[in-house]
């Protein structure tokens, strides 16, 4: 067992000579705080040689004894601290009764080190050790998790922090990993089976007769009928925000339940860098720290031009680094509410472990809007509906607010369109004629601006496995997302949008894409089936890329869920409208009924996994991406 030199909670403190012991003392204080914490934070391992041991760990997050999947006896798994430019060796031993694996999420490495059973290697059999070894050629915040079975849901996830080779462009005095996750006492296999048998099993936020009555009183029968008509006709539910909810989940921050809460200590005047990682199986979180502005400095490990926000959404598997400058005499709550508001994870940033801050109420429960079905024309109708409902700040105005928010997204879209006349013309064409059966024939548009291709629903999308198709998907770049759309008007919060993200460094590969691949995220919610282009992973051919080529992938979300889509081994360069500063991501949120485009340089040979990172979508909503040496015609 390779033990770390010492835990390093704060790089800057170390650099400036403050002893690691001080950092430990801080930790010790929080451990003996009045709200006695159940367990220590995950240990920090640093260096370039690691022995990781996967095994069972008895845990008790809810009052019930359960068995978790742990690394070195810790849930979350230890924080790994690497240095850019070093070669790391990780010997991973599996002490489980089943095959296991570890995937280094967001790391650019040889495909046999990527840790996906069936694609990268055979997996790690019980009792076996697999030696991962690769060069670390990037820096920032990443994470690792099992890619076998449901082990990630049961605890096998941990943070990776890579110290840059060059001076860090981000100034901070101390940093903390803030790893979010969702814990269930249920067997994840049972969760999946329940969803298949009754897809709304975990949704206890459905619209009731009382809601209907309130709508009728506020809006009248005719408008209520009109607003609900399409949902009922399509057999869709506006309240379908999360598949698995706080009904079974306990949301954790660094492994701490909301009751105990994680505690991060700072000293007066310090700039604190928080490395948010969403290691949850199924939960998208909306994060804010009441009383503090957050300066977002990195996304998916990559430095971005700093953006100051009050709130941001973190999709499953995404990472965001933010810098906060708390005043020295006050505690703050780090508040991460689930997207459907069925629960939250929380922590405290405090100068003194005995100080705590108020825990805010969760925001209103969002409802889906017509725009989330990918229907541009309907979004227009919503607008009228929302204007009247808007002055009303009851729970129900929420839906109105959503609608108008969506249209703001739409407006932004058409404004972007104006910058590139062609796009908006295309868009209008789509709406007029509908968009069936026209294949992608145009030469792809220039890098940075996204797709101008027709939306084409493949024949494989028509069948019992797909319950809807977005007919006029809009760009989701300037839409904060379901449940966040009216936070600016309602609460005065600035919410991060993908369109706000610019890479800190100039785009490396300036080539325009040679071709475009359009992939549709598809599913049948009622049958709980998930697929790409209507084809599940088990029946699908790999997506083939030629080594060295630059390609655009356009994802069209034909479902009403927000899916975090993760491409292994290659960067996903999000086209936000500025070709010079394209942000590089490893996981992208695709909002319901929208499309999003990114560029991929196929610079790593091998077989890579490409999938939705929602654990119970992944088995079906997955592809192999195979990067091969040339010779294949486009």
């Amino acid at each position: 067992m390779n033990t770390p030199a010492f835990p390093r909670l704060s790089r800057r403190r170390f650099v400036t000579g403050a002893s690691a012991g001080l950092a430990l003392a801080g930790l010790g204080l929080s451990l003996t705080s009045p709200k006695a914490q159940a367990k220590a934070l995950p240990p920090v391992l640093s260096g370039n040689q690691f022995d990781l041991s996967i095994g069972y760990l008895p845990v008790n997050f809810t009052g019930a004894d359960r068995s978790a999947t742990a690394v070195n006896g810790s849930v979350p798994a230890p924080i790994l601290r690497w240095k850019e430019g070093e070669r790391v060796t990780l010997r991973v031993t599996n002490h489980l009764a089943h095959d296991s694996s570890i995937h280094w999420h967001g790391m650019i490495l040889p495909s046999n080190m990527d840790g996906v059973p069936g694609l990268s290697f055979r997996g790690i059999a019980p009792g076996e050790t697999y030696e991962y070894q690769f060069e670390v050629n990037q820096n920032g915040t990443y994470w690792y998790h099992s890619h076998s079975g449901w082990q990630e849901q049961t605890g096998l996830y941990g943070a990776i922090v890579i110290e840059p080779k060059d001076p860090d462009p981000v100034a901070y005095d101390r940093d903390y990993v803030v790893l979010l996750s969702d814990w269930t006492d249920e067997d994840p296999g049972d969760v999946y089976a329940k969803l298949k048998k009754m897809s709304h099993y975990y949704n206890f936020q459905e619209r009731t007769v009382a809601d209907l009555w309130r709508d009728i009183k506020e809006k009248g029968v005719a408008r209520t009928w009109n607003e609900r008509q399409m949902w009922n006709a399509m057999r869709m539910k506006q309240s379908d925000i999360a598949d698995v909810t706080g009904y079974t989940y306990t949301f954790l921050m660094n492994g701490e339940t909301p009751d105990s809460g994680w505690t991060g200590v700072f000293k007066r005047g310090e700039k604190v860098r928080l490395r948010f990682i969403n290691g949850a199986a199924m939960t998208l979180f909306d994060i804010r720290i009441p009383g503090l502005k957050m300066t977002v400095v990195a996304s998916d490990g990559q430095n971005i031009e700093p953006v100051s926000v009050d709130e941001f959404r973190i999709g499953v598997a995404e990472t965001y680094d933010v810098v906060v400058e708390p005043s020295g005499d006050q505690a703050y709550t780090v508040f991460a509410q689930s997207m459907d508001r069925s629960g939250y994870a929380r922590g405290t940033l405090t100068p003194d472990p005995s100080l705590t801050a108020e825990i805010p109420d969760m925001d209103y429960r969002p409802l889906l809007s017509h725009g989330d079905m990918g229907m541009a024309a309907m979004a227009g109708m919503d607008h009228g509906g929302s204007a009247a409902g808007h002055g009303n700040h009851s729970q129900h105005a929420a839906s109105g607010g959503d609608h108008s928010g969506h249209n703001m997204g739409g407006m932004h879209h058409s404004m972007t369109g104006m910058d590139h006349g062609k796009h908006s013309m295309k868009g209008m064409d789509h709406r007029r004629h509908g968009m069936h059966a026209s294949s992608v024939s145009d030469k792809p548009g220039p890098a940075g601006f996204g797709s101008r291709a027709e939306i084409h629903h493949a024949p494989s999308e028509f069948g019992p496995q797909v319950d809807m198709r977005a007919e006029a998907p809009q760009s989701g770049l300037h839409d904060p997302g379901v449940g966040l759309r009216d936070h600016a008007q309602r609460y005065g919060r600035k919410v991060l949008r993908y369109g706000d993200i610019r890479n800190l460094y100039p785009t490396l590969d300036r080539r325009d894409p040679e071709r475009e691949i359009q992939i549709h995220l598809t599913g049948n919610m009622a049958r709980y089936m998930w697929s790409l282009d209507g084809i599940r992973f088990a029946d699908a051919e790999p997506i083939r890329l030629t080594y060295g080529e630059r390609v655009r992938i356009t994802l069209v979300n034909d479902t009403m869920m927000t899916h975090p889509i993760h491409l292994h081994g290659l960067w996903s360069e999000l086209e936000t409208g500025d070709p010079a500063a394209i942000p590089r991501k490893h996981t992208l949120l695709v909002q319901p009924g929208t499309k999003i485009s990114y560029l991929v340089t196929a610079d790593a040979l091998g077989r890579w996994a490409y999938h939705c990172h929602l654990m119970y979508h992944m088995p079906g909503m997955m592809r192999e991406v195979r990067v091969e040496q040339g010779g294949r015609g486009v």
Partner: protein
Amino acid sequence: MKHFYRYVVLPALLLWATQVYAGGNDDPFLVMGKVDQLELRQTEGDDPVAFEGQLWAGHDLNKLWLKVDSERVDGDYEELELQALYSRAVTPFWNLQVGARRDIKPEPDRNWAVLTLQGLAPYQFEVEASLFVGESGRTALRLVSEYEMLLTQRLILSPEVELNVYGHNDPDTGVGSGLADVQAGLRLRYEMRREFAPYIGLNWQKRYGNSADLAAAEGDDIEDLQFVVGLRMWF
């Protein structure tokens, strides 16, 4: 019945399942048993116990279904109907089911071939429409529809209607041609868990046309309104 499931049906299902799909863990083999109604119906005479349930096993798009519909009075079956069906998803919300139905009670027993369209209609109505073809050219149609109204997240009011139409008279089993009977129910359940919900409700039945005449000749009620108490469960 239990033995029939355990020793005949389940092994057959398992065998069938492993043959059809190998691997592909997005679509595991699942078994779901559901008791839609297990209820005591209050009448003037002996209170019947009604049981309506189903067991399915299979994958996302292909399943085997067993359906049971029965009514017992004083421990004896007055009505016992079994169906075994192969169910295949044909559209996002509809399944086509084919198979056999056997009416064990009332006697003499009757056998039917079954074709059912089962699924979710627009406006969230659960619908089951069946065509039955029996021996000696007997035919029957059945339409069942159910709706759920959420009074709260756990308190659910559920109206249900069932219609039975027959092509021929079958005096031995008490059915006449044409619209034979209508059953309407209104049940209010409380989901203590999703899988376990006690309920109370009303069940109304009426016989029509030739069936009503046959019932009258037997001295049976033509119309009946019953108060019911029951349990809805699934696993």
